[in-house]
């Protein structure tokens, strides 16, 4: 590693440790992340670094969009992290069991979307029909999915030929757009989905009715749109999209190609929550929100690389952004 980076890293470590020890940790580390030129250079100073940012941002765009779609209907899909892992595991399980057919990885991707949509339907059904709040059921399902994916990847479906706990390698993989930074098709898919989503939400009649569900069910109901079915479909679609993002991450040629037991906890699902919250009522803001969270994640990697600070420090920064976003999103509106 470059000597300047290392010396800068020493400098950072000293300051970060001081900051952490005095309790102003997150803000202190955040400022170090943004203001230290060496970390910045490592994160954004080259085309490869920028491509790496896009790689991080592409699943965030999809998960953020999925969360946003539920938010505009007055619900929130909080189980993104677990669903993202479930999608990844599903593509690994089906993908390693597939016979050698021309269909390639497609059946595995369809299976991942289907199983994750079912999880979304379950969460929505519990809310709309049984009255169980989707935050509660989502949090609990997250735990179930965390334990289940870890158990399956390190137990029954573990690659016996490997010491590390992960599934066997996929027979088929999705192509990479750039092998230098592992940019996968998720980036193109995310851009297409976001454009379609913005168009539907802001430029079509159905989009307006969907947005109206965030305020009241009555307007859609009186017009003939069933609010329960609509929310159910949106939650299913959102969960399916998050599952697809997880499936693409695992199913792309590149670092994974197999499902590691510790895949849950990658932070994509939680960061997707922040992206959706930050975007607020406007779907357009999904793009800058995604880039912001991508930058934070990317800077966390760079900081970790340069200073040996744990990458979770960056997650703390993301958590601060999440709290600020949640505060503005859910603060009491002044009555007019």
């Amino acid at each position: 590693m470059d000597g300047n980076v290392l010396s800068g890293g020493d400098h950072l470590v000293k300051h970060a440790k001081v900051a952490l020890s005095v309790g102003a940790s997150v803000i202190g580390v955040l400022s170090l992340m943004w203001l230290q030129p060496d970390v910045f250079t490592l994160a954004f100073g080259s085309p490869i670094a920028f491509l790496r940012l896009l790689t991080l941002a592409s699943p965030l765009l999809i998960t953020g969009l999925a969360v946003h779609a539920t938010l505009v209907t007055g619900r929130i899909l909080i189980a993104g992290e677990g669903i993202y892992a479930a999608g990844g595991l599903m593509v690994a399980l089906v993908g390693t069991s597939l016979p050698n057919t021309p269909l390639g990885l497609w059946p595995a991707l369809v299976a991942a979307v289907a199983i994750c949509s079912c999880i979304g339907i379950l969460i929505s059904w519990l809310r709309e029909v049984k009255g169980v709040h989707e935050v509660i059921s989502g949090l609990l399902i997250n735990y179930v999915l965390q334990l289940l994916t870890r158990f399956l990847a390190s137990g029954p479906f573990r690659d016996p030929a490997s010491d590390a706990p992960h599934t066997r390698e996929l027979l088929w993989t999705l192509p990479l757009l750039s092998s230098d930074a592992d940019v996968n098709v998720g980036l193109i898919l995310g851009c297409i989905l976001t454009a379609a989503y913005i168009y539907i939400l802001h430029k079509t009649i159905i989009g307006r009715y969907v947005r109206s569900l965030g305020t009241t069910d009555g307007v859609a109901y009186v017009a003939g749109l069933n609010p329960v079915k609509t929310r159910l479909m949106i939650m299913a679609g959102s969960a399916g999209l998050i599952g697809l993002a997880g499936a693409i991450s695992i199913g792309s040629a590149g670092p994974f190609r197999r499902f590691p037991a510790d895949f849950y906890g990658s932070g994509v699902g939680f960061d997707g929550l922040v992206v959706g919250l930050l975007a607020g009522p406007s779907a357009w803001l999904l793009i800058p929100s995604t880039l912001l969270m991508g930058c934070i994640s990317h800077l966390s990697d760079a900081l970790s690389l340069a200073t040996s600070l744990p990458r979770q420090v960056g997650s703390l920064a993301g958590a601060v952004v999440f709290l600020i976003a949640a505060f503005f999103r859910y603060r009491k509106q002044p009555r007019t």
Partner: protein
Amino acid sequence: MHVSNPQPALNLSNLVLGYGGMPVVDGFSLSIPCGELHALAGENGAGKTTVLKAIAGLIPVSAGSISTSRGDNGNPVRVSFVLQHDALPSNMTIGACIMCASVAVNVHTNSDEVHHLLTLVGLHAAPHIRVSELSMHQRQLLQLACALASKPGVLLLDEPTAVMSHTDAMHFWNLIQTEVTNGLTVVVATHKLEDIKAQCSRVTVMRAGKLIFTRPTGVVSIDDIIMGMAPPSSTQLEPHPNAIREFHGDPLIRISGNGETLTICEHEVHGIAGLDGSGYDTWLKALALSRQDGLTVHVNDIHIDTLSISARRNLGIGYIPADRHVDALISSETLGVNLSFGQLPKRASAAWLPLIRSQSEAAATSVIMDAYDVRPRDVARTVSSLSGGNQQKFLVGRELERDNKVLVINQPTRGLDRGASNAICGKIKAASLRDKSAILVYSDDLSFLINTCDKISIVSNGRLVETRPVGLWTETSLVEAII
């Protein structure tokens, strides 16, 4: 027992109020003594609600001052506000709402007092019932109970009887008069000028955000109030004369149940009258929304009981719901966006495909605003920035201008002043003249029903008890039949 207090309960001095930099009320001054029932009258958008909101502290004062008298403890007396559209949390119970309202101002209310308050306001519902299960008029009464639970010195009421039947309104006014006798100061904004004359001590008339006059109701006539609210040229003071019309041929609509049949012929405007809880709404819903137990509906000889709401809209059955904030308009969206609500496109795919063009939408919105006198004429405004009456005019205009063959209207004049009500009356009659058109309308404003409808039916206990041509009804006979 009321002890006379020489200090005014409420003093407004040179108030300037507005939204987003646009002044709505300008140079408004008023002094109200303790224990007075004071009315604010004015056209839709005159600024009545804005003044009440400012007194309640819900909007900032741009200039001028508001002061209230001080209680025994030396602190300013408490001000409670009963909004035109309730802000009650729908998932809370009645009892919890009342207790929260009192706890918020450090007044402890126990369950006995909750029962007492519910009885006092005439809300016959158990405290464990959720707000979402209450009718609009019951929610209004619950708001009043919450307001009284906080033991206010000044009570503000915004269109309190707009959704109440005649009997409920009488009970409501009796309660308010009792509270006023006990020293409560009440300021009420209402379009019901007869109520102002009968119930209030003084009336302040506003026009376009300015004070026109404040006079004792004993020396001012309803015509004086109307003249103060709007110059004769700008408002239709007299209702359209309701010519008796004969209808022949097969009815366009048949709603049958319990041995009775409500029939509506082509071009007919059919009114329904009934107390809250009488079941009148099942007759409206059976036609506009969904199957109702015991009722069978035919439109143009098509049996529609099993049809979905969207299928009914595709058949040309439109609906104006009573609660515009819950079922018809999205307050945070612009008028242009709200124009597209109410019914989905007839082809399901059309809801996904067509690009919404803001220019054509603005033009269509502008046409409705002109035709229905929705003020201010700014299509880019959000619904929430309009007064309640102007929101209602926009909603009625939106649905009347659609190419619906059958229209079901619930409370069309909610929050409308007399001039606007008369204008809506004319628009409804005009809409009934379209080919294959028929209109079913419910209103608790009986004079509006008599001026608008060709026939009026009475509903009681869910049953159709009597139907007569409008010429055979008077307001008195309607009240007797309803009760």
